[in-house]
């Protein structure tokens, strides 16, 4: 796992800082190395930015099959354009924006109603026991897992706008606001206030449920 080298501590493009962002100069350097044939650099790019692409796809609530195809399309196209990126430092935004456009195309082309009633997506947190969960044996971890499950349920029950924004924000490492903007087609300046409101709403839902 090389994703660690993508981590940095600050944003320079927005007046907002938090730890763990993908450093765009680092991303640019990795992209340039990958162009020159450095497979390890490509691996670091994929591992550092895959969760962002996946989050964008998930935020748009595609069916699993569509989500998988969009994710692949985005990475195939990124590999194809690798040596021609105008701003390699903004590879994250390029990926997020491409993912968004492909998602919108899928939604536009949908003639079948797989959009929101894909039971696997909606019931994932409530019904499925993931491999991770089955591994949990200590009581403490079980309590923590239950808390995470509840948090996820409340997150899924949020309105579309908040659910979308938070799904992108929660990708790992945390995306920059430029990337979030590219992922959702919203202005950078509106992300902070909307984020604050959505997180408060989620907290209120958790509190109402007594799952503090």
């Amino acid at each position, binding site marked *: 796992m090389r994703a660690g080298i993508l981590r940095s501590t600050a944003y320079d493009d927005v007046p907002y800082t938090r730890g763990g962002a993908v450093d765009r100069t680092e991303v640019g350097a990795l992209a340039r190395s990958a162009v020159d044939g450095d497979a390890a650099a490509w691996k670091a790019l994929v591992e550092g930015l895959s969760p962002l692409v996946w989050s964008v796809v998930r935020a748009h609530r595609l069916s699993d099959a569509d989500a998988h195809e969009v*994710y692949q399309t985005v990475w195939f196209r990124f590999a194809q354009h690798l040596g021609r990126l105008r701003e390699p430092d903004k590879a994250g935004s390029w990926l997020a924006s491409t993912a968004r456009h492909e998602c919108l195309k899928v939604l536009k082309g949908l003639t079948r109603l797989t959009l929101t009633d894909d039971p696997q997506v909606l019931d994932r947190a409530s019904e499925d026991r993931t491999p991770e969960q089955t591994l949990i044996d200590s009581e403490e971890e079980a309590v923590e897992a239950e808390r995470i499950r509840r*948090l996820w349920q409340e997150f899924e029950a949020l309105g579309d706008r908040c659910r979308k924004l938070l799904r992108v924000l929660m990708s790992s490492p945390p995306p920059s606001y430029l990337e979030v903007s590219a992922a959702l087609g919203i202005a950078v300046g509106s992300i902070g206030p909307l984020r604050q409101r959505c997180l408060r709403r989620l907290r209120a839902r958790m509190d109402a449920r007594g799952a503090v």
Partner: protein
Amino acid sequence: MDESGIPEGDFEASGFDGDLLEEELRQAATVLDPVPAALLQLALDAYALHDLDARIAELTFDSLVDALPVRGVPDAPRMLTFRAGAVTVDVEVTGEGLIGQVLPPQSARIEVLGGPQTARPVTVDTLGRFTSDTPPAGPFALRLRAGGEVIVTEWLRA
């Protein structure tokens, strides 16, 4: 910093820590909705698709986006046009496969790429007209060898 305009004092008095909650969500996503391992592997393998020598034919028309929907024709074929310089490739994707034409008319060798490891040749006539009786399953691209150069169409989801 509170960008929502709510007074800082109220914000802190409520004991609400948005960063902490976001971090918890990040943990939840890592456990409950991670990138599927098979997809991560496909993205790693996609490195093989980077080809500095090939020209990219950009998508200039997509009926899904650029055409008005035709009512009562739910299975209207997907019409795509790609362009690289003077070369244009028109493609029609149907449930039965692909039909297309290279313009200006010329003989070419054409393959349908289905991923980092999949390339299937299609039949092309001397005027650059081609057919494939296998509809693309998932993302695809066309690789053309014509006039001494290699052109690859932008990856697209069928």
